């Protein structure tokens, strides 16, 4: 029997830098900005942080590979720092590990910080890793997700116009968000006419390559009222890992991501959620590509497989819909600095639950869900936060 962490961990501080092409900031500067601001938000000093988890995906010119990157940025000396890397689910997984340590009673106050500097390179997209010489030649992120999108669209007859609606919605939300990478609305026609990157994805179906950092301060729930009156508590979390080479696995149907479904089930069980449509008020999900958000609706259990297109077409995921998805603008519009994204989602959920989201505020936000996907689709992490009942 696993032990539930529900209600045992509180998020007492959050912060997020402006996401975008942060040419005037180094990785270290973004980390200092995010880390300091999160401590300020919690009403603590960096010295009060007993342990930290750093989420970064790729080592860049300014570091990012090892824990020392965070130690050197915040001059956080003599304390445990753990680096987490789990593809694009890095940020939420760092949060999940930090929460488990707090719930276990090992630490009272910890920091989770996600940061990534992707725009220090002129090339678009993620840097190619030291890949296996044979098995992965020819792959890019849009290409790998297009394998799924094409099979899905072939099976369910979805067209590009439906995908475009996700971009239109998330850009509209991002236009209300002063920290988003893109703060401009787009039209369906603009999305459809954009240059093709990997069919069915045009430029506007893809999230950008972005710089950014975000941080959260976690505290044992029973001590949290010292820092905040209204508590935001972890309700549940889950992480599921599938094959990193789905293209070699003959059992994969390419219609969605079972990792998301498995991670969500773990989180729902911990949070005691039976019907997410009724019990979750809004979601920040991993819309690296427009189609990904459509399969997320289904894989997270908000509608049946194959009905994700209808879900967006009916406006249910809009800011004014019954379950707003990506009120922040999502990866699509807010940007996607890999390791920072998951922590940025936590920032958005907390901001919404506090009722501090301004123009993009979701009405009556009591329970929010963050969903991170990586690999592609190989790793999924779900975190559910709620206001103290």
């Amino acid at each position, binding site marked *: 029997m696993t032990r539930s962490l529900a209600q045992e961990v509180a998020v007492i501080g959050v912060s997020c830098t402006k996401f975008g092409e942060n040419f005037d900031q180094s990785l270290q500067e973004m980390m200092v900005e995010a880390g300091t601001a999160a401590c300020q938000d919690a009403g603590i000093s960096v010295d009060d942080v007993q342990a930290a988890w750093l989420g970064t995906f790729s080592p860049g010119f300014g570091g990012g590979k090892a824990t020392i990157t965070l130690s050197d940025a915040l001059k956080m000396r003599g304390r445990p720092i753990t680096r987490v890397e789990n593809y694009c689910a890095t940020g939420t997984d760092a949060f999940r590990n930090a929460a488990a340590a707090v719930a276990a009673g090992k630490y009272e106050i910890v920091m989770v910080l996600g940061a990534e500097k992707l725009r220090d390179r002129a090339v678009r997209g993620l840097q190619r890793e030291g890949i296996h010489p044979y098995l992965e030649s020819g792959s890019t992120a849009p290409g790998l997700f297009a394998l799924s999108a094409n099979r899905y669209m072939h099976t369910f007859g979805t067209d590009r116009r439906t995908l475009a609606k996700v971009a239109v919605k998330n850009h509209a939300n991002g236009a209300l968000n002063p920290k988003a990478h893109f703060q401009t609305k787009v039209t369906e026609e603009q999305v459809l006419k954009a240059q093709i990157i*990997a069919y069915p994805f045009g430029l506007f179906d893809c999230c950008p390559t972005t710089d950014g950092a975000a941080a959260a301060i976690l505290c044992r729930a029973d001590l949290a009222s010292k820092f905040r009156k209204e508590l935001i508590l972890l309700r549940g979390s889950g992480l599921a890992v599938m094959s990193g080479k789905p293209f*070699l*696995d003959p059992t994969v149907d390419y219609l969605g991501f079972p990792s998301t479904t498995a991670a969500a089930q773990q989180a729902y069980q911990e949070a005691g959620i039976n019907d997410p449509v009724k019990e979750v008020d809004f979601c920040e999900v991993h819309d690296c590509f427009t189609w990904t958000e459509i399969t997320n609706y289904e894989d997270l259990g908000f509608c049946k497989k194959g009905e994700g297109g209808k879900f967006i077409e009916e406006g249910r995921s809009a800011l004014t819909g019954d379950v707003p998805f990506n009120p922040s603008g999502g990866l699509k519009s807010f940007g996607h600095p890999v390791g920072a994204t998951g922590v940025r989602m936590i920032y958005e959920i907390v901001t919404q639950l506090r009722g501090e989201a301004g123009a993009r505020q979701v009405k009556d936000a009591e329970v929010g869900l963050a969903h991170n996907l990586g690999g592609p689709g190989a790793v999924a992490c779900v975190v559910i936060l709620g206001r103290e009942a």
Partner: protein
Amino acid sequence: MKGIVGHAVRLPAYAVSRDEIARAWQISSPGGQKRCVRFDEDSLTLAATAAQDCIAGLERAAIGGLLFASTTAPHLERLNASLIAAVCDLPAPCATMDLASSLRSASSGLQTALSLIEGRQGDTVVVCAGDTRDAEPGSGEEMLFADAGAAVAVGDQNVIAELVSATTVYDDFLDTVRRDRDEFITSFASKFSTDRGYVAPMQTAIQSALKQGGLTAQQVSKAALTSPDKRSHLQLAKKLGLTENQVQDILFNDVGLTGSAMPLILLSAALECAQPGDIILVAAHGNGADALVFRVTDNIRSYKSGLPISQQATRVPYASYTQYRKARDYFRRADNGLEISNVLYAKEEHQNVRLHGSECSHCGTRQFPVTQICVSCRKGDQLREVALARSGTIFTFAQDELYPSPFPPTLMAVVDLAGGGRIYCELVDCLPSDARIGMPVDLMFRKFKEGGGLYHYYWKCRPGKGL
């Protein structure tokens, strides 16, 4: 009885029109087109694909030798034939050798192969050839030189064309020369070169072979004669007393001059149309000449050849001369560093080169790569290594405009192999608009990059036979 037991030709799907070359250099065009490789093919991959097609219907365990002939082998040190033998998944005791330096290296290889099987009953030896001769931009040869591969298997079981006679003559004549340090040939092309360097030794070798076989020129059904240009083989034929319809078309308009692969291609073309009892003469030039005479047997009626030449039409014509030139050295310019370890290469040769996977005896699932625990039933005690099929259907695919390529998009396909196993590889020789989910594909060995002083090869797929 010994002779030919299999044959196959591999023509590249790409071509450039000679009028386009002429336009680029403001010179006159002899018309037609020449076949040329995509940027991910070389002499080795052309020969390997032909060899694979050639042995498709033969018993693999009986293959005791593989000879590779080329004047443009990708490796000067590293046995090209060994890599091709591994691609063909041949047994380890197989004799492997590279033949080089001459346009008649493949015909000499054919004679060597026939002598290798002497006294080794049941043995099969494969001769494959590939050439990708690059001519100096703007030169006359640039109009002529084309890329292609071919393979012929010889043995003494189920012979489709029995060896009647074979001869060879050498002649250290200065004709075309490429030294170890040269990128392009130095040519003495002239009437003297044609008469003295081509017609004379060919005539000697052919007449001697016919005499040895007790045959006259009139008895030859088809003469497969290599040529240094568009027409000289017809001049030779006239001297030999052959009529034009006895001479195999050299495919000049569609293909071009294919170097060391040419004699095997013309032989294969002649065999595709042959009837039992036909006499087939094949002769090749290059510092002398080789001539071989075969008599077609009744087995030709039941022989199933690889993809016939008529079904290897151009799929992707280069739109311009510039594109053609860009393709010829793309990987050299896009060198992206050493990403291979010889430890890994040795460890994974069976899966990556021989295309082996695992089969689970519990649930029957075939899977790639070789694995320790079944992807389907999760049991790990009854997996055995198996050779996977080299054809399948596309389960899903992507057209990736972002992946670095001289001609985007890069098509990447998830392929379900016939009989099981799933592989992820590039779909090549296919217009993006022709790619479909459910499309049958054949796997072929291609180059995927250069780097660290190495050529890197892996499997790719192309539209299946008949598509």
